[in-house]
C-alpha cells in the first residue's frame, strides 16, 4: 500500500515538470515577442523593453528561465503580472470562488449521475433507461456555452428565478445555476459510466452467488452491485475535479463569475504571458493532486490494488 502511494506520487513529478515545461516553452520560446502585449500599439522604448525582459528573466537562456520560474513556484513567489500585481495574490483571491463552483458541480454530477445511472442500469432496455440514454447524449452533444446561454436566458432572464450573472460575493444561490451548467456534461458521463458499470456487475457471478445465499434484492443491489460499480465512477469523478477547473473558463465567462477561469481568459486576451503560465501551472498542479486523490480513492475502494 505504502509503496503504491509512493510510486504514484513519484510518477506525478515528471508529469508536473513536463507539463509546466511544455507550457513555459510554448509561451516564452515560440517566435513572437512576449512583451509586445504590455507595450500595446504604441510600442515601448528599447530601454523599457530591456527592463521588462530582465524582470521576467527573458534575457536568460531558456533553461535558466525555466529553473528560475520553478524556483518561484516552489517558494510561492510567482512574480507580478504585466499590470504589476503579484500573481500569487490574484490567484489566492479568485481561487475560492472557482473551488466552490467546481465542488458544487462535482456534488451535483455525482449525486444525480449515480442515482440516474443506477436506476437506468437496473432497468436496462426499459423506457426510463432509453430516455435517459438519449437525454445524456443530447447533454454531451450540446456545447457548454450554448447550454449556458440557454439556461441563463430561460432561468435568469425569462423566469427570473435567479440572477443571470454572479456578483462579486459569489453566494451559494448565485453559483447554483453556473454549477449546474458546469456539471451537466460530466453528469451525463457519470450517468453513462454508472449505468454501464451496473449492467456489467448485475450479471457478475458473485452477484448471482449473493442472491443464491438468500440475501434480499435490496441488499444485493446496494452491497454487491452498487458498491463494486462505484469504483470506476469515483475514479472518473476524481479526475473530473481537475477538468472542471479548466472547464470553468467558459462557464465563468457566461455568468461573469470572478474566478480562476475568467482571470485566465482575461490574461489570454491581454497577452499577459506570466499570468497565463502561472494560472495554467496552478491548474496542472490541481490536476496532479486530483489524480493522486483518485489513486488513493482507488486503493481505498478496491482491495486488490491496496495489497498489490
Amino acid at each position, binding site marked *: 500500500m505504502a509503496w503504491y502511494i509512493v510510486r504514484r506520487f513519484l510518477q506525478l513529478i*515528471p508529469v508536473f515538470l513536463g*507539463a509546466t515545461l*511544455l*507550457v513555459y516553452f510554448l509561451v516564452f520560446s515560440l517566435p513572437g515577442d512576449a512583451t509586445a502585449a504590455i507595450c500595446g500599439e504604441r510600442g515601448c522604448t528599447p530601454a523599457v523593453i530591456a527592463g521588462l525582459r530582465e524582470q521576467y528573466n527573458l534575457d536568460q537562456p531558456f533553461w535558466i528561465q525555466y529553473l528560475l520560474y520553478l524556483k518561484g513556484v516552489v517558494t510561492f513567489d510567482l512574480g507580478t503580472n504585466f499590470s504589476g500585481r503579484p500573481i500569487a495574490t490574484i490567484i489566492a483571491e479568485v481561487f475560492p470562488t472557482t473551488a466552490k463552483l467546481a465542488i458544487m458541480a462535482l456534488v451535483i454530477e455525482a449525486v444525480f449521475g449515480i442515482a440516474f445511472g443506477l436506476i437506468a442500469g437496473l432497468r436496462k432496455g426499459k423506457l426510463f433507461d432509453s430516455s435517459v440514454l438519449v437525454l445524456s447524449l443530447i447533454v454531451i*452533444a450540446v*456545447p457548454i*456555452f450554448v447550454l449556458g446561454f440557454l439556461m441563463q*436566458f430561460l432561468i435568469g432572464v425569462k423566469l427570473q428565478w435567479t440572477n443571470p450573472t454572479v456578483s462579486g460575493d459569489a453566494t451559494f444561490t448565485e453559483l447554483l445555476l453556473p454549477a449546474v451548467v458546469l456539471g451537466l456534461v460530466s453528469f451525463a458521463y457519470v450517468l453513462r459510466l454508472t449505468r454501464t458499470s451496473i449492467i456489467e456487475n448485475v450479471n457478475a457471478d458473485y452477484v448471482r452467488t449473493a442472491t443464491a445465499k438468500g440475501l434480499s434484492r435490496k441488499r444485493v443491489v446496494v452491497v454487491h452491485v452498487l458498491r463494486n460499480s462505484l469504483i470506476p465512477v469515483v475514479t472518473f469523478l476524481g479526475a473530473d475535479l481537475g477538468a472542471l477547473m479548466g472547464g470553468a473558463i467558459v462557464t465563468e465567462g457566461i455568468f461573469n463569475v470572478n474566478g480562476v477561469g475568467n482571470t485566465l481568459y482575461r490574461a489570454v486576451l491581454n497577452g499577459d504571458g506570466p499570468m497565463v503560465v502561472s494560472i*495554467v501551472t496552478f491548474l496542472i498542479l490541481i490536476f496532479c493532486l486530483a489524480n493522486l486523490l483518485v489513486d488513493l480513492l482507488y486503493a481505498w475502494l478496491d482491495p486488490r490494488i491496496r495489497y498489490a
Partner: protein
Amino acid sequence: MPEPTSPSASSRPTVATAPASTTAPAVARTKTSPYPIEHFVADPDETPVRATDSVVSDVAPRSLWGEAWRSLRKQPLFLISSILILGVIFVALFPGIFTHEPPNENCLLANSDGGPTAGHPLGFTVQGCDILSRVVHGTRSSLTVGLFATLGVVLIGGLIGALAGFFGGWVDAILARVGDIFFALPLILGAIVVVQLPVFQQNRNVWTLVVILVAFGWPQIARITRAAVIEVRNADFVTAARSLGVSPLGALVKHVIPNALAPVIVIATISLGTFIVAESTLSFLGIGLPPDVMSWGNDIFSAKPSLRSNPMAIFWPGLALSITVLSFIMLGDALRDALDPKARKR
C-alpha cells in the same frame, strides 16, 4: 401452454426399475441410494443424436464487419445519425442550394437584430446579416476542422498507441509518460494557451487550429489504441502467426491492428464531435477562427452582447452546432454497440 398429455406415456418408453444395490459385484465406491431408482430412457427418436460437431452450412458466410453492418442497419440511432451526418455534409458541400442570400455581403445595419421577415425566415444578426445564410455557410469550417483534426489524431495517436502497446517495455514507458504530460493539459486549456500566442494570432486559420487541436488531442486516441492493441497482442492467433514465422511488425499490421480497430473507430467518431465543439468554443472565446471566417462559434461570440434582446441569434447557430455534434456522438454510440467485442458471437 402446449398439450397437457401425460409425460409418462410419451417419454418413458423403457422403464426398468432396479434397485441400484443389486448391480455388478465388481463395483467399489459408487454410491448406493436407499431409495429405488428407476432406469429411465427417453425415446431415442425424440431427441435424435446428431453426428458430433456436424457442420451446419445453410447460411451465407458472414465476416465480423458484415455482422456489425447487419446489426447497425437495424439500429434507429445509427439510421438517424447517419442521415443527419449526410445532410450536414451535403450542406457543407453545397451551401448555395439552401440559401440564396449571401452571408456577408448583404448585411444592412437597419436590419440589426431584426426578427424573421419574408426571405429571411430566421431573422438577422446584430450586423444585420441573414441568420439562415450565416448558419448554412458556417457548416463547412466546423466540419473541416472536425474532420481533419480527427484524421490527425487517429494517425498520430493511433501510431503512437499501437507502437507503445505492441512493443511494450521502454518504448511504452516513454510514450506513456509523454502522453501523461499532455493529458495534464486538457484540450481546451492547452489550446487556449497556444492560440493566444502571437505566432498563432498572426496566422489564424482553419489549418493552424487543426494543428493545435491535434497537438493536444492525440493522447486520448493513443491510450485507447494502446489498450486495444495490448488486448489483441496476447491472443493465441498472434502467437500462432509468430510461430508461423510472421515478423513482429507483420503480426502487428496483419493481425493486431485490424482486430484493435473497432474501439478506435468508435472514439474517432465521437472525437469528430468533440473537435467541432472545441473549435466553436475557441471561436466563441474570440481566439479560434478569425472573424472573417464564417463559423457557428464566431456567430455565437458576436451575438453574445445582445443575448437579452435577440436570443435567436445565439439559438440558431447553437442548434446547428448541437445537432451536428449530436449526430456524430450518436453514430459513435451506435458503432460502439455494433462493434462491442462483448456482444460478438463467441
